[in-house]
């Protein structure tokens, strides 16, 4: 028989407000196995934990039940408390009387009654708990960073600087990501390239960092500390280690009409190209969709002009298998498509552009060499209208926009407006806004400067329709302050398109078994306390793949993710989850049902000798669980016809005891 201690937490008034904690503690005293019952304001506090420790010693407790907040919140805390008092941490059960009781019920009697049942259920379970000891597994001391934007770069650099090897997998031919496309950064107006490209060089030169550019992760197996990852290195038809990046081929290639995706299609590149001057690796890549040699075997100019003999038209996709201890997702974001927002005439006029396109228009390395010219006719625009929240905060139309605020648009729009007025004082600049959101250091000051010093016209209201008429774009919108409908004759309209996670994130999340929210942003292990970790052990989150972020936030989160990775890789052994499957060999039929449903391949079979009747020996095929690989889902326990397979910590008997306690 267990000697169980029950500890009922008030959580201030969070629990005590709707649950009579004294009554709960009193009622649970009479449950089987309970020898001690107490209540306290904050069980998770130092004093509360001390109370538990004392009770464990004083009453010789063999198990404890804490009636408190969700086990997702403080189960670890109380397990540590128990361990500190010499009790096996897996002899702790939590009754969730906050999130699943006091917070959802208003009636004291109802809340109290339910809390007692939840407490009783936890007691019924802990009566059947057994001490568990976690197994250990080794750690591969290498990290994988998926995505080579500023988030991935910063994470990789920080991990590498701590002395661990890091591989970056980037799907594009160069690292750099979105930041490489940005002109200037708010609120300091630093040139983005000036602060990014040195970091790209650092990555290239770091002896601990390897870049898999033009590559994708196609398979992930294993678990924290021991991931097996398959990387597809897409054929770039150029030998990466031979190409000197001289760029001669990119000038001689006769295929001139290839939309330049780095400039968002606003100008053209050749079929063999280096995305931009500071690309890392600075290696040419052939676009197989446009290359005549690859399509019909007629050309070969690049091979002829290449003095290094780096061109290889026969190159094939290669698959590389690598082992890692930790994986960081840094897959970034993209502006959403404007296809569904044609009230702004994006498809009808070249002079309606997105903010990222505007960024390229303002960039000295962009399609207009930094001169603000209309894409349609190359003329200098005099009246510019910026429209914010295009597709952001859009609740009615899941298929159209995003319900969330994209966070960065207010600031970059202020930046665009300010830069336009700064460079071209002859312009009139209007910004239609719903709200201007500028929480951040020097952010509001920046926005106010745009208005007060640079004379940007901020209009509280939204644009309803943009109509291309003649050379002009008639922007019809409301001015809610003036209570007027405006019709502005604009030359250029810039849409602050909502941002969304990169499309590669969803399949990656599936491979990583990492969870995502409804918008396909990765979810954190805890939104406040573990913001850079995925709930899947060994998977970390860096940058906008977790939610919209600006550069400073991205870089700080990237560093935080790196520090978590470093913490993991610094360990020689990982203690696993002891709640793993276990097969009772005496009952096992060897039927392979469990093996078939195990997602991790944790179950193997062995022929074992057993004593049969009349002094005979029987050989039976029995299942064996590799505890380092088993993640404890319990699927095998149900597949097993004989019930030989059970799950430690969530044993059938325990769950049935819980069922019984609830239904009592």
């Amino acid at each position, binding site marked *: 028989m267990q000697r169980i201690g029950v500890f009922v937490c008030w959580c201030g008034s969070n629990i005590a407000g709707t649950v009579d904690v004294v009554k709960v503690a009193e009622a649970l005293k009479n449950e089987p196995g309970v020898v001690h019952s107490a209540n306290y304001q904050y069980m998770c506090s130092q004093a509360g934990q001390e109370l538990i420790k004392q009770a464990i010693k004083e009453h010789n407790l063999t198990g404890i039940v804490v009636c408190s907040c969700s086990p997702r919140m403080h189960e670890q805390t109380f397990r540590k408390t128990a361990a500190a008092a010499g009790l096996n941490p897996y002899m702790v059960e939590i009754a969730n009387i906050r999130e699943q009781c006091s917070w959802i019920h208003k009636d004291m009697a109802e809340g109290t009654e339910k809390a007692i049942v939840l407490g009783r259920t936890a007691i019924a379970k802990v009566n059947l708990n057994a001490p568990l000891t976690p197994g250990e597994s080794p750690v591969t001391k290498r990290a994988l960073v998926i995505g080579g934007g500023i988030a991935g770069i910063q994470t990789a650099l920080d991990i590498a600087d701590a002395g661990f090897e890091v591989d970056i997998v980037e799907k594009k031919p160069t690292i750099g990501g979105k930041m490489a496309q940005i002109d200037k950064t708010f609120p300091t107006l630093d040139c983005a390239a000036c602060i990014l490209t040195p970091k790209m060089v650092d990555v290239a030169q770091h002896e601990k960092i390897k870049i898999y550019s033009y590559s994708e992760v196609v398979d992930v197996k294993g678990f924290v500390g021991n991931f097996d990852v398959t990387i597809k290195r897409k054929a770039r038809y150029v030998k990466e280690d031979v190409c000197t990046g001289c760029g001669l081929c990119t000038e001689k290639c006769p295929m001139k009409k290839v939309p330049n995706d780095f400039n968002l299609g606003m100008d053209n590149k050749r079929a063999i190209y280096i995305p931009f001057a500071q690309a890392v690796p600075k290696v040419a890549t052939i676009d197989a969709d446009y290359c005549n040699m690859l399509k019909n075997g007629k050309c070969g100019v690049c091979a002829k002009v290449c003095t290094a003999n780096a061109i290889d038209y026969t190159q094939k996709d290669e698959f590389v298998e690598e082992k890692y201890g930790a994986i960081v997702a840094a897959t970034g974001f993209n502006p959403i498509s404007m*296809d*569904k*927002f*044609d*009230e702004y*005439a994006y*498809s*009808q006029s070249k002079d309606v552009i997105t903010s990222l396109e505007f960024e390229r228009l303002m960039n000295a390395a962009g399609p207009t060499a930094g001169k603000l010219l209309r894409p349609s006719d190359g003329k200098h625009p005099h009246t510019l209208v910026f429209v914010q929240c295009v597709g952001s905060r859009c609740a009615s139309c899941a298929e159209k926009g995003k319900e969330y605020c994209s966070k960065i648009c207010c600031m970059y729009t202020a930046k665009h407006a300010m830069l336009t007025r700064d460079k071209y004082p002859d312009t009139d600049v209007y910004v239609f806004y719903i709200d201007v959101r500028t929480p951040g250091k020097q952010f509001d000051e920046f926005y106010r400067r745009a208005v007060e010093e640079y004379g940007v016209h901020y209009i509280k209201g939204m644009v309803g*329709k*943009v*109509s*291309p*008429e*003649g050379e002009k774009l*008639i922007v019809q919108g409301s001015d809610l302050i003036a209570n007027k409908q405006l019709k502005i004759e604009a030359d250029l309209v810039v849409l602050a398109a909502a941002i969304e996670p990169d499309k590669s994130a969803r399949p990656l999340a599936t491979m990583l078994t990492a969870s995502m929210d409804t918008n396909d942003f990765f979810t954190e292990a805890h939104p406040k306390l573990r913001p850079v970790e995925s709930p899947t052990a060994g998977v970390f989150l860096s940058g906008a793949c977790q939610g919209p972020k600006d550069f400073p936030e991205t870089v700080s989160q990237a560093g935080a993710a790196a520090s978590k990775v470093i913490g993991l890789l610094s360990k020689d052994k990982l203690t696993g989850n002891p709640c793993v499957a276990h097969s009772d060999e005496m009952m096992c039929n060897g039927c392979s049902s469990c093996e078939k449903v195990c997602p991790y391949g944790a179950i193997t079979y062995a022929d074992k000798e057993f004593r049969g009747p009349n002094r005979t020996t029987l050989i039976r095929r029995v299942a064996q669980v590799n505890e380092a690989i088993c993640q404890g889902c319990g699927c095998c326990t149900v597949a097993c016809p004989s019930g030989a397979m059970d799950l430690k910590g969530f044993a059938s008997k325990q769950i049935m005891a819980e069922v019984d306690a609830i239904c009592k």
Partner: protein
Amino acid sequence: MKVSYFPGCTLKTKAKELDIYARRSAEALGVTLEEIENWQCCGGVFTTSNDEIATKLSSIRALKAAGDKGQPLVSVCSACHNVLKQTNAQFNNDADFAFRVNNYVKPDEYNGETKVIHYLELLRDVVGFDKIKEKVVNPLTGKKIAAYYGCLLLRPGKVMAMDDVENPTIMEDFIRAIGGEPVIYAYRNECCGGYITMESKELAAAKSKKVSENAKEKGAELIVTACPLCKYNLDKHAEDIPVVYITELLAEALGVKE
């Protein structure tokens, strides 16, 4: 094949071309428009309020008549189509409305299963623009035609679900199918003023003028529409640019106009 057909009041009087050419063209394309019996006026506009029952009963009866034959209900007038589709959607999404409606029409209860499609949808989804292309004998080659959707054909987008509300292509594809060259202009899905012409000629004039100016400015020689009221407003108040019905254009292209 055969489909149920709801012509609507205007098609029997002021917009006979819309009706006649719709039937002839459909016949030429292998579809028979079977006019449903004893149809009543749809009312011209759909009242969005959920306590409005009586004004929607004529639509329900039409829907029921088509449903009994197991046919989709086709209309060509944008207004009729809009009312029928919206009424059908309300019937299927608002159980209270459905209950009350069926109380009125007892014992001829409607089950909500009829599919409402516009003549253009019939051409696109049932006949297929490719097939129309094959059957064209007088292609409108080189003719720059501006499709005018107005508001009733597309909105509310969630209910009408015919095409992208802001960037539709169904009429442009139709124009291409009969050999013409579509002209894209921003006002193609803006309102012509509609029934406001009764209340304020000035407002209707301003709205429809804007539409035809914009179409002309983008190079259109001709505007096509599916709505008699749109045609009226554009004809009455707008720039001198011909406005014709989609069906007339189709009949001409198919060589069945006369």
